[in-house]
């Protein structure tokens, strides 16, 4: 009996010790990427990291974009929260910081701080504390189909001003070509017009004044004018039939199928339009053009100012040190160059843009490097509640059910209500 007890105990002890020696640190990484080709590289990166750090396991978790946004608050407050989460910075990041669900990593990133573009890093810094590392940035602008533009005798590379754009739309319409496709059902693709116009009209100063409630806030002149310019375009009926019912991937595929001449998009649509086209080929590089958002007469913003996204990875409270090590590995020059080389992102790590091997993405990278004022998407920057009102209101402006003045007022009301 005694012997049996002893051997049992020994067995238990053995099992226990075996358990501890095999114990792994699991890094839970939550993302929302849907492009299989890109996920493949990410998985390779994760496996490499595991190989270099024995006893580490990187577990990739996925949520679709909309459900990610809806479920994240609950997820972050559970004990089983992921260690690394995706972020667009801006207002949502601020809410997460205030709730104390993120980890302050300011003191642990000395080794990578100088390798990352300061502006991108600043986006993940709130009140002097850094909570994550950026990994990509993007620019919004017009993609165009050279063949269709030629049908309307328009040269996309000469479109510099708002009047140029309106002229191109008129010519294309006259030639029977759908000038612009937009995923109006998702609303945010329409907010690109209004916000890009605000960036051109008022520049950085106007946005910052609005945040502080100066000059009438978002009801001020800059934002009303943005609506008026947008209405000039909307009045020409430039969009495809039924644009308010198109979801963004649908619109992207529509462009890829060569059914519309232009689309105001995030630069990554460059390769998405290929994947979403019916023939999986889309518009090939020789027929594809890009021009930056046009300037407006008397605009205070510089033509080089950009509107786009800054994306990165946040560390949640209680995340193991290995999780931060993994994020550092992810934003290392080597990994960034690989992702840039496959044209999936414009890197934020200095020197990694050397990995970009195509003219289109190089042009975007140069634009972003030159940009004196990179405005994050309003629907991220202003937080989820006000951001969605911007999307709603601009979609209504495009649908003709709201006036420019009403749009500006709706945004300002939401801003006041939300703060």
């Amino acid at each position, binding site marked *: 009996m005694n012997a049996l007890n002893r051997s049992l105990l020994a067995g238990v002890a053995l099992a226990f010790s075996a358990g501890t020696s095999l114990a792994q640190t699991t890094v839970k990484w939550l993302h929302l990427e849907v492009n299989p080709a890109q996920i493949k590289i990410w998985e390779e990166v994760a496996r490499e990291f595991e190989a270099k750090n024995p006893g580490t396991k990187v577990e990739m978790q996925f949520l679709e974009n*909309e459900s990610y*946004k*809806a479920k994240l*608050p*609950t997820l*972050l*407050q559970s004990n089983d929260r992921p260690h690394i989460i995706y972020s667009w910075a801006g207002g*949502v990041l601020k*809410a*997460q910081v*205030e*709730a*104390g*669900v993120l980890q302050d990593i300011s003191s642990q990133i000395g080794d990578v701080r100088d390798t990352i573009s300061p502006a991108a890093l600043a986006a993940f810094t709130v009140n002097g504390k850094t909570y994550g590392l950026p990994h990509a940035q993007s620019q919004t602008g017009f993609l165009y189909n050279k063949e269709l533009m030629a049908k309307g005798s328009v040269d996309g590379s000469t479109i510099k001003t708002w009047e140029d754009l309106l002229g191109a739309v008129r010519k294309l319409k006259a030639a029977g070509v759908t000038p612009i496709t937009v995923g*109006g*059902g998702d*609303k945010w693709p329409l907010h690109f017009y209004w916000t890009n116009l605000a960036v051109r009209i008022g520049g950085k100063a106007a946005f910052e004044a609005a945040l502080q409630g100066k000059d009438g806030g978002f009801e001020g002149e800059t934002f009303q004018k943005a609506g008026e310019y947008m209405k000039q375009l909307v009045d020409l009926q430039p969009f495809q*039939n*039924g*644009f*308010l*019912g*198109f979801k963004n991937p649908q619109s992207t595929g*529509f462009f890829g199928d060569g*059914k519309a001449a232009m689309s105001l998009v995030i630069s990554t649509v460059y390769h998405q339009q290929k994947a979403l086209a019916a023939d999986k080929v889309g518009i090939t590089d020789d027929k594809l053009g890009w021009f930056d958002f046009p300037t407006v007469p008397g605009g205070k913003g510089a033509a080089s100012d950009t509107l786009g996204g800054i994306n990165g990875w946040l560390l949640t409270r209680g995340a193991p040190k290995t999780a931060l090590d993994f994020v550092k590995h992810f934003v290392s020059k080597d990994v960034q160059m690989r992702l840039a080389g496959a044209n999936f992102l414009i890197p934020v790590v200095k020197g990694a843009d050397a990995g970009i091997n195509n003219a289109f993405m190089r042009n975007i990278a140069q634009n972003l490097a030159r940009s004196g004022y990179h405005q994050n998407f309003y629907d991220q920057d202003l*937080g*989820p*509640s006000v951001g*969605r009102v911007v999307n*709603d209101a601009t*979609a*209504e402006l495009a*649908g003709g*059910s709201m006036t420019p003045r009403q749009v500006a007022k709706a945004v300002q009301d939401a801003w006041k*209500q939300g703060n």
Partner: protein
Amino acid sequence: MIASSARRQTGAGQMTAVVLFLPPAILLFTLFVVLPIVEAAWYGNYSWNGFGTPTNWVGFDNYRYVFEARAFGLALRNNVLIIVVSLLIQLPLALTLALMLAEKFRGAVALRMLFFLPYVLAEVATGLIFSFVYDGDYGLLASIYRVFGAEAPHLLASTQTSMLAILIVVVWKYFGFHMMLFIAALQGQDRNLIEAARIDGASRWQALRYVSIPLLYPTIRLSIFFAVVGSLQLFDLVMPLTRGGPADSSQTMVSFLYSHGVTRMRIGYGSAIGVILFVICATFAITYKRWFMRDE
């Protein structure tokens, strides 16, 4: 054991059954139904983004904002519209088909299955299928229009027609369920009553009008109850079709709650909408049960 002792001494046996079986049910019901309702009522008084504990007490502001929101008015109007269409089109259609298909004839069972199939289909799948059907460029509807040489309207993209498109799907999807309810009730009816009426000289129509249908009243009342409550909760069909758009024109109460509360991280505001919806549903359920279903 319990059953047999209950038969011997009903009072004590019943007590045992109550003590044994009630607590788990009460506990689950409290945890997952009562508590969330109370919590929602509590959150509804805060401006809260879902992080941490709510601290910013705003009293009835959330409710005021809800009632001031244009989307809320539209959602309410749409819910009423769905109820009206359910009652005036869907139920009569279901009843007519049931009266025809309750008879035994060749193909009756196959037809019943066919009409019931849409109900079996998942809501989201249905929504996706119809978003393809309605697609003005590539959809089924578009090809039908093209046969006649006309250009198809984008039903889901216009504030005028988005709700119409959803209503068609609602009727298509749920009439089969009500039809089945009616068929089950019709087949449970005592054939002798009809036969007696016929022998007494009633025409087929009269037998139907004065015997069959009155016998169906309890089922019709139940059917109306399901139709109204189901209409109030309509959500998963709307999301894949229109997400409540364009310009909130096809919003229902629940999609309004989701898109203006949950996805905007306005949990307090969303809770207020939830409370309003709960009050509407509960008021309806209780009054309806009391007035129309008291015998059942």
